[in-house]
């Protein structure tokens, strides 16, 4: 995996760092309400990007990731309430717990396409029911409060930014590495991939753990952010659906699409909840339908098309002209 060092050294990383630096300066400019919204967006970005590693990179669409979000959140909450360990440690523990819990779904990995999805719905819902019932862990239907708010919202802003940036960086590195290539091969033809030595089971297991862990960490931060979590919200089917929507809106399988989708989702959610709360399901449903039929890569796809059109209309003629000028100039 030495190649990822080389990938990291490329110019694109500079752009990336610049963006993060800009965002880090934001608290000085934004008012608390907006800041909180952006923080929430960061958490959802991390979750969507993490979800996309399974749904987009591996190609196994999960409608049960809320289980991992919930496990991460509640484990972190317990660590925070019952010990004086620093918050980041609690969040990491939540992430590891979620990742390990995700590994329990390993036998379902060999299911193809829709079967995996349906199994994930089953696992997600079963987890919700069991964990809601286990009221020591989740506080039952009434939820769990953290006794103290350890961080200020501003501190959480930076932690959220860090998490989202890390998740996005990991996404980029995976895609550019040999692992990314193997994942693409598995998506194209899992049997032919085996015939050239690629072990789909071990790669998929690794991604399952990673995906669960990142979603779990975002769950932990979510707990710290609100100071109160309840199982129907954390483990709910709507939460699982949200991850799917974010990734699909932004671009299933792309590197940064899900992050973009998460931002759109959070913004739309906020404005919808204000004006037309009773329409959000229908809106998302219609959006899904429209995306699948017209632009399967969502916003990323639209961006690519726009880029190609700009290239065709303005950049290509310039290139052609430059080549022609060079040829005319030489003897």
């Amino acid at each position, binding site marked *: 995996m030495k190649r990822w060092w080389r990938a990291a050294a490329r110019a694109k990383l500079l752009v990336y760092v610049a963006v993060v630096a800009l965002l880090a300066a934001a608290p000085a400019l934004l008012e608390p309400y907006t800041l909180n919204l952006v923080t929430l967006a960061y958490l959802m970005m991390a979750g969507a990007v993490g979800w996309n590693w399974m749904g987009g990179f591996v190609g196994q669409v999960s409608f049960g990731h809320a289980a991992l979000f919930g496990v991460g959140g509640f484990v972190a909450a317990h660590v925070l309430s019952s010990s004086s360990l620093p918050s980041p440690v609690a969040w990491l523990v939540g992430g590891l717990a979620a990742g390990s819990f995700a590994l329990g779904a390993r036998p379902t990995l060999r299911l193809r396409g829709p079967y995996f999805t349906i199994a994930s719905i089953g696992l997600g819902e*079963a987890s919700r029911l069991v964990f*809601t019932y286990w009221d020591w862990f989740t506080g039952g239907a009434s939820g769990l409060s953290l006794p103290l708010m350890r961080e200020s919202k501003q501190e959480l802003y930076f932690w959220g930014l860090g998490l989202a940036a890390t998740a996005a960086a990991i996404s980029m590195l995976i895609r550019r590495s040999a692992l990314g290539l193997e994942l693409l091969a598995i998506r194209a033809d899992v049997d032919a991939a085996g015939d050239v030595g690629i072990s789909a089971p071990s790669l998929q297991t690794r991604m399952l753990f990673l995906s669960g862990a990142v979603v779990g960490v975002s769950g932990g931060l979510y707990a710290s952010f609100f100071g109160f979590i309840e199982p129907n919200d954390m483990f709910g089917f709507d939460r699982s659906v949200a991850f799917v929507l974010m990734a699909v809106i932004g671009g299933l399988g792309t590197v940064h699409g899900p992050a973009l989708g998460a931002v759109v989702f959070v913004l739309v959610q906020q404005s919808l909840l204000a004006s037309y709360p009773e*329409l959000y399901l229908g809106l998302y449903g219609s959006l899904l339908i429209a995306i699948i039929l017209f632009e399967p890569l969502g916003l990323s796809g639209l961006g690519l098309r726009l880029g190609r059109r700009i290239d065709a209309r303005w950049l290509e003629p310039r290139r052609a002209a430059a080549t022609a000028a060079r040829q005319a100039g030489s003897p």
Partner: protein
Amino acid sequence: MAQVFDLVLSAVLLAGLYAMMAYGLGLIYGVLRVVNLAHGGVIMCGAYLGWVLHERLGLDPYLALPLVMAVTFGFGVFLYRVLVCHLPRGAAGGPASLLLLFGVWLVLRNAAYLLFTANDQVIRTSYSTHSLPFFGTFLSVNRLAVLGLALVIPLALQLFLSRTYLGKAIRAVAQNADSCTLVGVDVERVYAITFGLGTALAGAAGLLSATLFSFNPAFGAGELLKSFVVVVLGGLGSVLGTSVAALILALVEVFAILVLPSYLTSAVGFVMLVLVLVLRPGGLFGRPVLG
């Protein structure tokens, strides 16, 4: 002992309903290779349609059945012609068909919320509370009616598939769609009709379910998963297989109530689903749904 007998009876009656739900899903999957994630939504629509007809027009649900089936059939054909036909067929469809139909389900749910609010509803007729004596216990009239219809409708379906031209065309397309175009079968029309039949069965199952249990717009998720359990366990194309699988599921659920706290009994279906998929994807009878 009497309690066991009661439970087994409940299971048998419940199995009929599950089998009906499974047929709709299985038919669409068997022929189009598409998992209809909107299945739960259509079941919910069938329930509401029947309820509306009963509340507003006083129409008896069992008499309304053909009407509800006709409407949901039309809806299925519409869904196919407008949306589903654009998807790539088979494995290449992958997440696309799932997401598309899931989107449809979300829209249906929202429509139901807007039209009917989130409150629980149920279809209560004048004879809902009547029961008939049966070997020392009592069977509710509704459950018997549901069982009866759950036996009749699939039989009718079987006859349709084996005796009529259209039915044979559907079976042929399920086996080899390309060859069908070569012999002059209008495959797209067959797909549309099959999708409609699948949704019609789902609608019927929804209506019948509404006479037994309460429902609300979120209704259908559990039914979708249970239908899937029955389809995978029972295999495709086997009426016997589907019936046995439905019975197994119903028995497990009914007896689970004895052992588990009531809150967790709905988890039983979900757990069974995962177990079946992982341990016995080949099913018990009929054509295996997987591989």
